[in-house]
C-alpha cells in the first residue's frame, strides 16, 4: 500500500492506505480523529465536512491520493479548546440535540464566514443548505451563524 504525508491541523502525518481511501476514513480509522462524522458517503449530508486550504469539502468523497500537500483542518483543529467564534456561538445558542451532525455544520459555517463575514439571513440559509440535521436544529444553526458573524 502507498504512503501519504498529510498536513492535518498544522502537523505532518504519515499514513499507509490504499489510494482510493476517502480522507474521512483516514481520519477516523487510521488517525482516530473521530470528530469528523460519517453520514452518507456520497457528499450529500455534510456530516464529514473538513477544510482544505480554508474551503469546506466533503471528506467522505475525497480520495487520500488527491490531497497530499494540501492544508487540512478538522473539527479537532478548528481552534484551541473550542474557542473559534463559530464554536462559541454554538455553545451560546445551545444548538445541538443529538449532536452528530454539528461538527460538519460548524466546519461549513466557519469556512463560509471566512468568505463572507457579514452575511444576510438568506445567504446563511443558502450556505448551510447542504448540511442535513436530522433533529432539525436548523433554527438554532441559523441563529448561531448570525451570532458568530457578529462576534468575529
Amino acid at each position: 500500500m502507498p504512503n501519504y504525508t498529510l498536513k492535518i491541523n498544522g502537523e505532518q502525518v504519515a499514513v499507509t492506505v490504499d489510494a482510493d481511501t476517502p480522507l474521512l476514513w483516514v481520519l477516523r480509522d487510521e488517525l482516530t480523529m473521530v470528530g469528523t462524522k460519517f453520514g452518507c458517503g456520497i457528499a450529500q449530508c455534510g456530516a464529514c465536512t473538513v477544510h482544505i486550504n480554508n474551503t469546506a469539502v466533503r471528506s467522505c468523497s475525497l480520495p487520500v491520493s488527491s490531497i497530499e500537500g494540501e492544508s487540512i483542518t478538522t473539527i479537532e483543529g478548528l481552534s484551541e479548546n473550542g474557542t473559534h467564534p463559530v464554536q462559541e456561538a454554538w455553545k451560546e445558542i445551545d444548538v445541538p440535540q443529538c449532536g452528530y451532525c454539528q461538527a460538519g455544520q460548524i466546519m461549513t459555517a466557519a469556512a463560509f464566514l471566512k468568505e463572507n463575514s457579514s452575511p444576510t439571513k438568506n445567504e446563511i440559509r443558502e450556505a448551510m443548505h447542504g448540511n442535513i440535521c436530522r433533529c432539525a436544529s436548523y433554527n438554532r444553526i441559523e441563529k448561531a451563524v448570525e451570532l458568530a458573524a457578529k462576534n468575529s
Partner: protein
Amino acid sequence: MKSQNKSLSFSRRNFLKTSVLAGGGMLIGFNLLSACKPEAIVPVDISKLNFNDFNAFIKISEEGYVTIFSPNPEIGQGVKTSMPMIIAEELDVSWDKVSVAQGLYDPVNYQRQVAGGSQSIRFGWDALRQTGATTKQMLVNAAAAKWGVEASTCFASQGIITNANGDTLGYGEVVKEAAILEIPENVSLKESKDYNIIGQDIKNVDIHKIITGKPLFGLDYISEGMVYASVLRPPSFGKKLASFDDRISKGINGVLEVVKFGDKIAVLGSNTWAAMKGKKALVAEWKNDAKLESTEDHDTELFKILNGKKFETNREDGNVEIAFRNADKIIERTYESPFLPHNCMEPMNFYAHVTPEKVHLVGPIQTPAWTAIKISKLLNRKPEEIHLAMTRMGGGFGRRLYGDFAEEAALISNITKKPIKVVFSREDDMAAGIYRPAIKYRIKASIKDGEITGYHLKEAAINGNMYGLIANFFPAGCIPNYKVSTANYKSKITTGAWRAPYTNFLAFAEQSFFNELAFELDKDHPTLLIELLQNVKGTKDERIQYSPERMEETIKLAMKKSNWGNTTEATHQGFSAYYSHNTHVAEVADIEMKNGMPLVKKVTVAVDCGIVVNPLGAKNQVEGGVIDGIGHAMYGNFSFKEGTPQAVNFDNYRLIRMQETPEVSTHFVESGLSPTGLGEPGLPPAGGAVANAIHTATGERLLKQPFINELEMSKSKILG
C-alpha cells in the same frame, strides 16, 4: 419518625441507599422506579458501580462537587441534562458544581432504561425529586449531629447547610457522616415557586464535547484490536441467500475475513473502507423466499381492507350507522401515507466482543436491557455475562429501540471471536430499516342541524395498528356517535416505532378532516375544536386521555401568539391541534406561495407539557419536532418495488434542509402540573397545520403524503 403511609415509607427506604466511597465522598444509589432489594449494597469503589439494584447514582465529593450518573439513554432529547437538573434542584446545589456522566446499564433489573415514548421525564419526576430531597435531608441531619442541634433548626441551600447560630458547613464536609446515617422518610419537596434550577435555561451537558469533536457516539468507539464489519443483507424483503463468491473480496487490501451468518454475509476489514469495499465486491445469488411486495400491492391491500368489513373496534360510542342514516350531509375522506425510514444521522452500528468469560457490547441503543436479554438468548449465554455500555446516540427516532444491529455484531463476534464493530453504510441503514408502516385512514362524519353527529375513523395499516389508548384521544367523547376501527395487512417489510408512532400521521389526517368539517359548518377551525371540547368537560369516562381544559388553553394560546386570522395578504394560515404522549400541542403554520409552491415561513406552537424543566432544551425539542413533522409530510417519499426499497441514500431520498425550514416560535402554557414528554408531541400536528394553510392559500386539499408529489402534480396541471 412517624410514618403516615406504610407502603410508601417501605419503598422510600429501599429505593435509596448510601455508602462512603473508598476514594472519599459519598455515593447514593437509587432505583428510579422500584424498591431495590433490601440486601442491596452501594459499591464503595466508583469504578465498580453496581447497576443490578440501583439504576442511577449520585456522587458527592468531599469538596462538594456532585456527579450524577444519568440513567436514561441520550438520543438527543435532552434527558442527560434535564433529569440531573431535577435531582440537583431538590438536592439544592448550584448547577456549576454538578457534572453528569452517562449511567451504565443494568443487565437484568432496569425498570425503565428506555428512551422512547417521551416518557423519561414523566416517569422520573417524582423519584428524581425524592432522591434529591432525601439526600439533602441526610446531609442536613449529619450537619445537625455534628453541631449537636436539632436538624429542624438547620436549612440547606446552594450546597451549604446553616444552623440557627449562623454556622455553616458545606455538603462536602459532612458526606462521610451523612453516608452512614439512616435514610430519612417523609422528606418535604420544594414548591415550584422556590425552584432555582428547574425552569432555567440550562445548556446541554455534552455541548463542549460535541462542538470540539470528542468521541461520544457509538461510531466513535474504538477498542484495542477492533476490526470493522460491513454486512451484505438480502437486497429485497422476501429474498434469501442462495450462494455467494467472496474471492474478489478476499483479495482486497485490508479485508481480513468473510463470514456467513444466516442469510447475511459479513466482511471484516482492518478499517471501515476496506470492509465496505469488500462487501461491494461480494458476488451473491439470492432466491425468492416469499412474495416480493411492491408499493402498489400495499395500496391494493390497504384499500381492500378499507372497503371491506374485517375490522376490530377500538372504541364505540352511540351508533355511527344511525347517525350517518339521519345525516343532512356526509363527508368522507381517505388519507394516505408511505413507509418511512428513520435516517438517524449516525448510521446503525454496534461493537461486540464475545469471549469465554463475557459478551462485551458497546453502542447506541435505546433499549439496553431488552437488547442484552435478547443477545443472551441468541448466544445462549447467562444474562450476567452480557455487559452492555451505552454511548450517546446520533439520533434515535425509534430506530434504536430495535437491537438488530447489536445482534448482528454479537453473532459475528461469536463466530470470529474478534472484537468487531458492525458499521451500516447509509444504503444499509435505509434498506435494512424497521420502517414507519404505510397507513391509510378513512374518516367519515355526519352533519345534522349544523352539528357533527357521527365520526367513524378506520385505520388500515401494515403489520400492526394503533395502540390501545389512541382511540381515546380527541375527538373521543366530543361526538355522540363515535367509532374507531382498525385492521392490518401482514407484510414481509419490517416495521416499527417511528417518532410519535401512529399519531405522526393520524394527527394530519384528523386535523385536515376537522379543517374540512369547519369549512363545511362555516366555522373557524380552532373555534370548532373549542366548541367540541366543551362536550367532554366533566366527563366520567376514565378512558379519555386528554384534558379538554388543557387542550382549550393550548389552542387559545396558539391563536393569540400566532395572531390567528389577522395576517397580511401574502400569508396564509393553517391550524392544527393534537394531544399525544400526555402533552397538548396546538400549531399555526404561516405560509406564502411562490411559483405555485408553498413556503412555510413560520410555525407558532403552544405546548402544555406541565412544568418545563429546561426551557432551552424543551424549545429545541419542539422546534425539531415541528420541522421534522413538516419535512416528512412534505418530502418523505419511500416506496418498494418487488421488495426492494427505491431510495437508499440522500441523493434520491429528500430530508428537509435549511432553506425549507420555517421559524418556529414556541410558547408554553404555564400549568404548574407535573412535567410530561416533549420528544414526540411537537411533531404530529405539524403536517396538518401546513396542509390546512395550503388549503387556505389555494383551496387544494392534500390527502396523501408526501405533499410534494401532489403539489408538483397540481402545479403541472395548472401550467399545462
